[in-house]
């Protein structure tokens, strides 16, 4: 069973944090492991996931897209239909309930795209928790709609002006807050990154995606899919889809990294494809760093993928060859965004459009009896401004 007791997936993971956080992480690990075994906790979470977040989400057969690409049968796991418009709520409801269980009254979070920030703000409003969200000023500019949504929900958004002013720096600032207010605060981390137990806990909360997919595809197709495809930022939507299929060796996993303007330009967010192993934000994993070990600036049109690190479980999947990782550029993602809008009437989040873009390449090469499931991790309303700008349209 992975991770091991110290939070390692093979050689990746661990708990590299200032001593001040160690006791809180041990407490969190214990609280989570007892909640996991507690039927009442699970029942409450299930209740909120179905009655509040709208689960199960459909596994939609994209007939027109399948026809247009002319190859494998394409299914979309519709996480975009979750309350708040992305998979992030699966995790924030779980950790929100856990926060109450631990008797803490305040949560903090980081956000890039604003989706995790909004999902945290929603959970905090629902569960009566105080909430502050750290967000890089670069992302505040790019995702202004979500910034306002968080404020409407009663959360405070704290602009982060340090570093490159994106997701990485928001995590730094959230960690500094946590070190300071540790006794009353839970850090509601939004992806499968960070120190143990976050990577495994967030993966578990997101695994509902893969569990539902398995049931749904068996019902609809009578067999498991051939490919699961998802975008990889920190790794939570992808691992949520992949993990329940881990032992089904014939199901291939494809993780799509953001290649930005192209891996060769250096302006990308592809640690698994172009990075090296190091330690950032509490765990040992692949990351983008220069020869001296300083973390590099990243780029992606999708703010939720604009991060130099990746969850340790993905590094492990890469190492053992369980998943294949592929690059998709800004341009390809944009094209896929438009394609889905116009063939199926669905505007995907730019993050999810990366997964879609790879399938645009893959599906035509496969025979018509193959099955692909794409995780449509979020909806694209938040990205309309970015897309307009990229198309040269002034709103």
């Amino acid at each position, binding site marked *: 069973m992975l991770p091991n007791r110290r939070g390692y997936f093979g050689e990746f993971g661990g708990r590299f944090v200032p001593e001040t956080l160690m006791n809180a992480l041990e407490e969190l690990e214990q609280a989570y492991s007892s909640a996991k075994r507690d039927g009442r906790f699970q029942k409450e979470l299930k209740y909120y996931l179905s009655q509040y977040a709208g689960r199960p989400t459909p596994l939609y057969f994209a007939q027109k897209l399948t026809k247009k690409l002319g190859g494998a049968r394409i299914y979309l796991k519709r996480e975009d239909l979750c309350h708040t418009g992305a998979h992030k709520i699966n995790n924030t409801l779980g950790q929100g309930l856990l926060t109450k269980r631990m008797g803490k009254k305040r949560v903090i979070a980081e956000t890039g795209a604003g989706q995790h920030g909004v999902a945290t703000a929603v959970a905090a409003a629902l569960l009566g928790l105080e909430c502050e969200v750290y967000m890089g000023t670069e992302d505040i500019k790019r995702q202004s709609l979500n910034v306002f949504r968080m404020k409407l929900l009663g959360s405070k958004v704290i602009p982060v002006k340090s570093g490159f002013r994106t997701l990485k720096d928001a995590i730094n600032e959230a960690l500094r807050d946590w070190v300071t207010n540790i006794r009353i605060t839970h850090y509601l981390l939004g992806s499968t990154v960070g120190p143990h137990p976050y990577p495994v806990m967030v993966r578990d909360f997101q695994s509902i995606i893969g569990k539902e997919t398995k049931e749904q595809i068996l019902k609809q197709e009578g067999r498991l899919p051939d490919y699961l495809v998802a975008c990889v930022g920190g790794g939570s939507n992808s691992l949520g889809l992949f993990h329940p299929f881990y032992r089904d060796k014939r199901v291939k996993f494809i993780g799509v990294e953001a290649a930005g303007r192209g891996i060769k330009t250096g302006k990308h967010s592809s640690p698994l494809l172009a990075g090296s192993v190091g330690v950032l*934000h509490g765990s040992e994993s692949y990351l983008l760093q220069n020869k001296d070990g300083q973390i590099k600036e990243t780029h992606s049109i999708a703010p939720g993928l604009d991060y130099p690190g990746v969850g340790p479980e993905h590094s492990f999947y890469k190492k053992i060859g369980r998943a294949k990782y592929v690059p998709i550029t800004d341009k390809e993602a944009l094209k896929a965004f438009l394609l889905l809008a116009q063939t199926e009437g669905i505007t995907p989040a730019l993050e999810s459009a990366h997964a879609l873009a790879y399938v645009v390449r893959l599906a035509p090469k496969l025979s018509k009896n193959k099955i692909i499931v794409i995780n449509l991790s979020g909806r694209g309303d938040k990205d309309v401004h970015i897309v307009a700008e990229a198309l040269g349209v002034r709103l």
Partner: protein
Amino acid sequence: MSRISEKLKELKKKKKTALIPFITAGDPDLKTTKALVLEMERRGADIIELGVPFSDPIADGPTIQAAGIRAMKHKISLEDILKLVKDLRRKTEVPLVLMTYYNLFYNYGIERFAVQAKKSGVDGVIAADLPVEEASELKKYARKNNLDTIFLASPTSPPQRLKLIAKETRGFIYYVSLTGVTGVREELAEDLISSLKRLKRLTKKPIAVGFGISKPEHIRKIRRYADGAVVGSAIISVIEKNLKSKDLVKKVGNFVRRLAQACY
């Protein structure tokens, strides 16, 4: 015995608390850092910590973050700082400690780092994001090369962790005075003295207190309960205020002198 342990033993006999200034290497440039180390020693520093700038200093407040940014403008690397230490060793025997984040050691290669650090004349190393549980590799090569691995303890560490930290640390225990990041504070944390008394009962190893120690008065309050006082942000603030002054080094020296006088 290491230079650090020897120094602390000698001061203990004199009933003096060690003054341990922290500055970021390369802030504002390496030449000034060199001059600062020598001046601080001359004005009463007993052990000196050199921060190696890292892009993502999660345990640091605004002052040390800003120092790191000033230093990184010159693209300063761990290698450059090891060279600086080597250079300093021709002029001084003051114990020197490198403090940074684990990725810089990891990236350099832990074994290679331990060997080169020792060769250059470094006495101890601290990684602010490396708890004892994750330190087996660093400990292994540091011990082989007689390099002290200094671990942090904090107000949130329960007794069994404090014992573990006390057992694993070399040179001294670095006690974080408050729950928070580095930075100048007006007052000491309320529970600091009682925490130090409790820690003293758990261990015979020397204890240095850092994070928030900002003025002579703070040192006077803790000196009976601590073997050392680390002052970082307050000194860096003097650097920051005098970046354009030709008296930068002297002004830092004057401040260090005042701090040192509070150590007796």
